[in-house]
């Protein structure tokens, strides 16, 4: 199968959905050519669809989020882009109090088919206000769906689904993933929300990982395989809806679980997975569930400090090793 980048996979999804449905349009800062957005996902789309459908906005996150809400509830299907997930803070009322709640508070009258694309995560020395991983906020919020693709294949399939759903979706990309490549079918496909993907099968320990952590977990799997330890890497792909069946099945098989993400540990998504698994698979667990996440500090600037707080394959492998060897 052809291999394309995560960036191009996303771009294809946008292009195909804009071709398929003329109600779909893009809204965000600096998304039109020649700049084509900070991570170049939308580069090349304004020449095709025009700046009436690739609408470049002033630096007004609250304003353009409201614009998306207003457009969505009156029949269009906006896809907005926040250049960094850190800037969703500027639009939090429109995201949390409006987009996420309109369907509910109108008693089901309104539908809010909007996608909020953004990217987070560390790894580029971009410091405290450009490298956060804030998905836990959106995951906690009733009314939103949250997707976090780790591969080009998932990125394309999930984005197409997100655009077709009638619920608001927070779609969280990762800045270091854009240049990663992987197989993506030429033919049309979509990936349902709420379906985890077992990215690697294994027997000794389950690792539930999201976004960049999936890639790190797969590398950890290689390291561990060399030592005779077999891990199963489960990527939920959507944080909500969350495919607990696949996770619980895996844990029942392996009896051990590590949950990993790039966001700070305290109150992060991993805690929810721990809480649900420890409830639903209590009798199957041989050891306490472990979290491999960032320590709860803001992203530091200096590379070595940033590396220190970032998860990586070694941190995951070390924890798995300790679990399997009964040291935890």
């Amino acid at each position, binding site marked *: 199968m052809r291999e394309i980048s995560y960036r191009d996979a996303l771009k294809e999804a946008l292009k195909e959905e804009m071709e398929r449905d003329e109600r779909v349009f893009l809204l965000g800062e600096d998304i039109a050519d020649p700049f084509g957005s900070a991570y170049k996902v939308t580069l090349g789309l304004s020449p095709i669809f025009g700046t009436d459908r690739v609408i470049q906005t002033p630096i007004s996150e609250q*304003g353009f989020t409201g614009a998306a809400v207003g457009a969505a509830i*009156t029949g269009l299907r906006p896809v907005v882009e926040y250049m960094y997930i850190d800037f969703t803070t500027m639009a939090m009322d429109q995201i949390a109090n409006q987009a996420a709640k309109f*369907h509910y508070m*109108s008693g089901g009258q309104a539908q809010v088919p909007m996608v909020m694309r953004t990217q987070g995560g560390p790894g580029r020395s971009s410091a405290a206000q450009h490298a956060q991983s804030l998905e836990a906020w959106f995951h906690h919020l009733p009314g939103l769906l949250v997707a976090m693709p780790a591969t080009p294949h998932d990125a394309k399939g999930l984005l197409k689904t997100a655009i077709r759903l009638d619920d608001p979706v927070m779609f969280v990309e990762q800045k270091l993933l854009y240049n990663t490549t992987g197989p993506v079918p030429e033919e049309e496909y979509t990936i349902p929300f*709420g379906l985890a993907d077992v990215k690697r099968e294994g027997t000794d320990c389950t690792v539930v990982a999201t976004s960049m952590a999936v890639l790190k977990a797969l590398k950890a799997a290689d390291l561990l395989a060399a030592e005779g330890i077999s891990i199963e890497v489960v990527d939920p792909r959507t944080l909500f809806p969350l495919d607990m069946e696949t996770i619980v099945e895996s844990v029942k098989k392996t009896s051990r679980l590590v949950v990993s993400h790039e966001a700070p540990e305290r109150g992060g998504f991993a805690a929810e997975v721990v809480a649900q698994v420890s409830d639903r698979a209590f009798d199957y667990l041989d050891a306490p569930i472990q979290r491999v996440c960032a320590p709860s500090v803001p992203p530091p600037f200096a590379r070595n400090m940033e590396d220190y707080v970032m998860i990586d394959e070694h941190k995951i492998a070390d924890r798995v090793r300790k679990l399997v060897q009964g040291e935890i």
Partner: protein
Amino acid sequence: MNDRKIPEDLTKDQLLAMYRRMRLIRGFEDTAQRLFENGEIGGFLHLSQGQEAVPVGTCTALRPDDYITSTHRGHGDVLAKGCEPKYMFAELYGRTTGYCKGKGGSMHIADFSQGIIGANGIVSGGLPIITGVGLSIKMRGTDQVAVCFFGDGATAEGGFHEALNLASLWQIPVIFVCQNNLYGLSQPFSETAYDCDLAQRARTYHIPGECVDGMDAIAVYRSVKEAVDRARSGGGPTFIEAKTYRFLGHYVGDPALYMPPEERKAWREKDAIAKLGTQLRAWDYLTEEEDEAMAASVQAELEQGVEYARSSPIPAPEEALDDVYVHFDYAGNPR
């Protein structure tokens, strides 16, 4: 007084309908207040007695397929655009027949079938949203317009600025109607902005702005009508500040100690309903008997509305879990 001059731009029927609507709103608010004080309904009630001329004047200039957004003080706005008291009462009673099936309550009444995008509990919440409604009209290529109602207090929020800026940039068919009732919650408008002329501020966005007497329904109508005509023909947004007054406290239960009694009295004397009534009689559009008959019919409609609400089914408590998502139940199972 040119009260004797019969308007040429509004028919007798229109004027009578406006008058009736204003009385319906007043009656609705008075009734809601009584029901709240009786303990029959709960939540927060932000009532709009005194402000009726603004929504009614405004919505008289609108078509059924036009849109409005409103605020926490939204009963008058949504009634003016076409909401029916009975479904509104049902909402206040938390019944399944309410506009939002009892999920929204006073601050979230919406009727999408009539372009009523809803009241909003967030001060300034509707301002960014209206830009999307305007954008959507423009992209869909219809000649609808969208009105954003908001209070004077909302003008201090950042969303006010972002919305005006986007509306100006996009030249969308949006009419900003600021109901300046002189107070935020308890704070006088003079504490919201230093000596501010809102229409003038709008003009710095190249949005035509004007200030209108919000105690005069016909004046409001005319101002909005001009804006609507311009918007429908592609002329972009307009800003209207309607100076009005909230006769009562911020919410039911607020003694409003911050409103000077003389001020309250002075504004009561400008009552827009009384004014229009006097005009209608001066124009021989309304006799005393017709006036009384109308009062009775409004009263009956409200009483029937309350009755309808009271006798409507209470939602099953577990309906609280519905309507979180279109495609999933609240726990994330597809449906």
